[in-house]
């Protein structure tokens, strides 16, 4: 459901542009609202969440899908943890639909999807691996890397049980906003994928804004 936010960018307590191919890792406090802004359109922000006090509690795609009884994420979606607690809730969304079935790109899965000789091209999972290596304070390893949200990605499921990758519903300036229900580590890979037509083979930056 499309819902615009009343929040004004000038009042944000934090703003940072994340270039395509980089990661973003930061704790958002309980009650804070954060926005992912698709600056140039049809970008994918591959996102994971962890309980900042106990990172073994983390975002769970299957628990989120099952509890809301719907495969797509939009305004009103409660993002559930593997302990079946609400971690965050989507409070505004000008895109209308986000994916949590398709997972992230990895160098290894790129070999299957595209070609074995694409194996060394930069991928979301590599950004996450660098993030956990450079942020040892969270004590995270590959075990903690799980199924993510693809903000701004449009992956329709058909009645017959197919999965299609459609051109994004997003456009320059579209955004999604979430309010944290617990202190949450936000880990985003701003997708570097060069092989997928859904971003016109052109990954672009996103901006993160946080309001207290």
């Amino acid at each position: 459901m499309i819902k615009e936010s009343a929040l004004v960018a000038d009042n944000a307590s934090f703003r940072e542009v994340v270039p395509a191919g980089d990661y973003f890792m930061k704790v958002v406090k309980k009650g804070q609202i954060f926005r992912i802004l698709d600056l140039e359109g049809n970008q994918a922000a591959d996102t994971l969440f962890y309980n900042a006090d106990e990172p073994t509690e983390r975002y769970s795609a299957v628990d989120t899908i099952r509890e809301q009884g719907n495969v797509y994420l939009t305004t009103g979606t409660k993002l559930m943890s593997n302990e079946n607690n609400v971690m965050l809730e989507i409070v505004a969304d000008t895109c209308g639909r986000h994916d949590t079935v398709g997972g992230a790109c990895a160098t290894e899965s790129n070999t299957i999807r595209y070609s074995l000789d694409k194996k060394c091209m930069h991928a979301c999972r590599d950004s996450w691996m660098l993030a956990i290596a450079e942020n040892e304070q969270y004590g995270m390893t590959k075990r903690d890397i799980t199924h993510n949200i693809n903000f701004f990605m449009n992956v329709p499921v058909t009645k017959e049980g197919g999965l299609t990758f459609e051109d994004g519903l997003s456009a320059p300036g579209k955004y999604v906003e979430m309010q944290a229900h617990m202190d949450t580590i936000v880990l985003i890979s701003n997708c570097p994928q060069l092989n997928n037509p859904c971003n016109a083979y052109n990954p672009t930056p996103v901006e993160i804004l946080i309001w207290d």
Partner: protein
Amino acid sequence: MTTLSSSKEVTPGGVIYEDKIAPACHWSLRMRKGTILKLIDDEGGANVGMLFYNPENMLERYNAPDTLKGQHTFKLTKGNCLYSDMGRIFCSIVEDSVGWHETVCGNTTKEIIKEKWGEKSYQEFHNEWNQNGHNSFLVELAKYGLGKKDMAANLNLFSAVGVDDEGNLQYLENNSKAGDSVELRFEMDTLVLLHTCPHPLSTAEEYPRKPISYQIIKAPEVADDDYCMNFRDENGRGFQNNEIYHIGGCCHD
């Protein structure tokens, strides 16, 4: 009744071992490359939660998103391969009389069971208790030094969940009939965790207690015209990745 034959005496396609898993139970087993795990829904309406790990490196695990997006599918059936997060195929669905297995709805938890069907404690009901899928996996994971960090989105074999145009989930009742079966041919050595707890979206009035039988079958050689390998170009590349992984031969060759 458990039966075991010497695998050396069994010809390709023959049954090496067969056994049953009671309802609301969990178990784990190591499948070898070149063997088939055939699961049979004895009474109809079974659900089998399943997870895969590479016993040589437990960080490599079943990856539902890669499995679905790599084959542009939401449902899983004959022809589909079940992928690890490392671009390899744990197993291929070589036969399937069911037609649709799902992998996005996760497990029952103690709370879900209590809300749907009420609590049946071990103290009162012993092994007829209302066990849940989440705890079943935690127990099996712990046997191998794994924990909740290692739990990924699982398969729910024999269960189907579709979606409408708006993305709303629709649990398909009576998806699996008595005698239905699915056969998983393992393309690399794999640790298999499974449980027979109900599907979390089951609409049954009472906690469904559904047993399964399973057989371990000696698989024929994978031929160049193999159905699963040729089902999609992606699967051909997945088989190539497995071949690269096994350069020099696998441990038991």
